[in-house]
């Protein structure tokens, strides 16, 4: 578990990601960034245009000015080509961080991720390494509808060779991104765009959160809530309300989805005997069902009640605000699930 000093300065999730990129670029000149509009106005040679945009939601803003356009490179809208270029560059000595704007755009370029990046090391008998980070946005709540809002990170967890990370707060976003960039395997780094403006305490300077380690931001004895990304906040809201009625929940923030910190999850289940999994992804073949499978195969004898899942429905993300709000798991649904495990 990461301990955060209260005296630490507070920055947003967006700023934390930017800071990690900045520090890692300063630390290692093999780190380069590319993607659509990561700098902005690439047609202009004028320095005042260098950070015209900084990514569609401004996450990379300022980096082109600091590190130059030789290292912060705008691409055409050509996901297959530039994601694949990330793979090729990683296989030949660079450490690229490539931005796939929204995770739904994986539909355009999936071959380069699952057949090239993921399989190359194995296919080549271990004689290649692919230190590639693909940063991408997940998350509903922006009224951006079906193709810009979903969270299908489980798709990537399915493929051997890929690592998948989904930070829930600014400190983890910084620390996990640094770890991902230093890692020698391809990492899909899932940023929940609804969290970009969320502030939180973040250590200054070098800060690395190892991949594959969950955190336990709230300890309790009654029920374990395993949550991912923005759902950790939803779990906290539910836990606060439940605490007033005497239910002590423990929250496990997975942070890394592949590899998965099975030890921390199992230890919590063994302690509480009750499990609720909260995931914004669709319910089928998901990280949530993985956690349920983990409990069923390795902690069944500790379970005092059936596992409850709280996820999005098996639908695309709807546009209408009323419907989108009904799509995303709420604290109320989590509370209901927790109570059901105690019934």
């Amino acid at each position, binding site marked *: 578990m990461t301990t955060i000093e209260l005296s630490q300065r507070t920055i947003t999730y967006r700023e934390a990601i930017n800071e990690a990129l900045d520090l890692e670029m300063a630390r290692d000149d093999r780190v*380069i960034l590319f993607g659509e509009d990561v700098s902005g106005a690439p047609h202009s040679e004028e320095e005042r245009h260098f950070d015209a945009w900084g990514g569609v939601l401004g996450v990379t803003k300022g980096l082109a000015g600091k590190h130059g356009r*030789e*290292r912060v*490179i705008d*691409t*055409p809208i*050509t996901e*297959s*080509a*530039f*994601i*694949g*270029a*990330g*793979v*090729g*560059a*990683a*296989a*030949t*000595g*660079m450490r*690229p961080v490539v931005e796939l704007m929204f995770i739904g755009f994986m539909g355009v370029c999936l*071959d*380069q991720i699952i*057949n*090239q990046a993921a*399989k*190359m*090391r*194995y*296919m*080549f*008998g*271990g*004689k*290649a*390494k692919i230190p590639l980070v693909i940063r991408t946005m997940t998350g509903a709540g922006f009224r951006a509808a079906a193709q810009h809002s979903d969270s299908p990170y489980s798709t990537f967890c399915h493929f*051997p*060779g890929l*690592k998948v990370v989904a930070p829930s707060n600014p400190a983890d976003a910084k620390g996990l991104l640094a770890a991902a960039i230093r*890692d*020698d*395997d391809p990492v899909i780094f899932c940023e929940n765009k609804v969290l970009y403006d969320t502030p939180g305490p973040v250590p200054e300077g070098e800060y690395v959160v190892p991949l*594959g380690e969950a955190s336990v931001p709230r300890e309790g004895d009654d029920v374990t809530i395993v949550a991912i990304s923005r759902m950790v906040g939803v779990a906290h809201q539910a836990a606060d309300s439940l605490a007033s009625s005497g239910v002590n929940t423990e929250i496990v923030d997975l942070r890394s989805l*592949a*590899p*998965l910190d*099975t030890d921390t999850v199992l230890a919590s289940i063994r302690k509480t005997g009750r499990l609720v999994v909260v995931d914004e992804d669709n319910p089928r073949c998901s990280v949530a069902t*993985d956690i349920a*499978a*983990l409990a069923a*195969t*390795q902690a069944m004898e500790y379970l005092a009640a059936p596992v409850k899942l709280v996820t999005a429905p098996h639908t695309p993300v709807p546009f209408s605000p009323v419907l989108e709000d009904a799509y995303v798991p709420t604290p109320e649904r989590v509370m209901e699930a927790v109570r059901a495990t105690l019934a």
Partner: protein
Amino acid sequence: MDMDRNSLVEAYRRMRTIREFEDRLHKDFAGGEIPGFVHLYAGEEAVAVGLCSHLGDGDFITSTHRGHGHCIAKGVDTAGMMAEIYGKAPGSCNGKGGSMHIADVDKGMLGANGIVGGGPPLACGAALSAKKRGTDNVVICFFGDGASNQGTTLEGMNLAGVWKLPVVFVCENNGYAETTSYKYSVSGTDIAARARGFGMPSVAVDGLDFFAVAEAAGEAIARARRGEGPTFIEAQTYRYYGHFEGDSIAYRDREEEESFRSRDCLSRFRQTVTSQGLVEAADLDAIDGAVAAEIEQAVTDALSAPDPSLDSLTTDVYVDFPASQLWMFQDEPVRV
């Protein structure tokens, strides 16, 4: 074409090695010795060797599912390749890649590719890397007439043009994507013309003529090394065998095959260099003998080589990953 005797001898040796390697696989596959699928390069040797004879180990190539010729042209060891195709432990990829994923990154060979059109984006990345690392290395992106219709190929050409990358795109138009003639699948049928739309120089050459390929390649590669960006070469060639071994080749006529075989790249090379007194026929004969012995030895060694250990099933998936999660939700099988 300005090539010294040593370069000519080496080019012949590599083309001869490819032919011998592929003819031998053709024979042994029919005998049921080889697992899986093999896609043979026989007939197209002048393209791979014409391009790769300009390259060093620091240069990269991306390849196709018909990749043995590219490997040999790039200097990958035939013993390791043969063992790989037999799925054996000492194979180039420790038996994990096989014919369709055969690779040797240390030799700059970024892998045969089972995905048609999988290579062009990778080639752009390797070229970006060459540029960012401050080298004058280049990347040759081999693909076929089939891949000329894939979006990744066209996107790769666009990106290489936009970023002025040192890539030479080489379309090996061997006439057929599986059973489908490019005359059916390529709208407009002029593959080289497509590249001009991306603002890069583009030529179509006789891919059965080593010297024509090597000359176009020399210009394209020099241009890339000078930092002037990508070039496109359509090499019009022919594959002697089917799409893969076992293909009955019912989709093309024997007359057509004969017309291409009568222009065989190895025979023409031999004719050209001996008639011009550049290399003695006896020297080429000696290469033929040495190559035959090398491939014979490679097959003998591959057959007697050990299989991969069962433990290697779960190695090299990642550089670093918890081993227990490679048998997620279950105990690792106990083997006796």
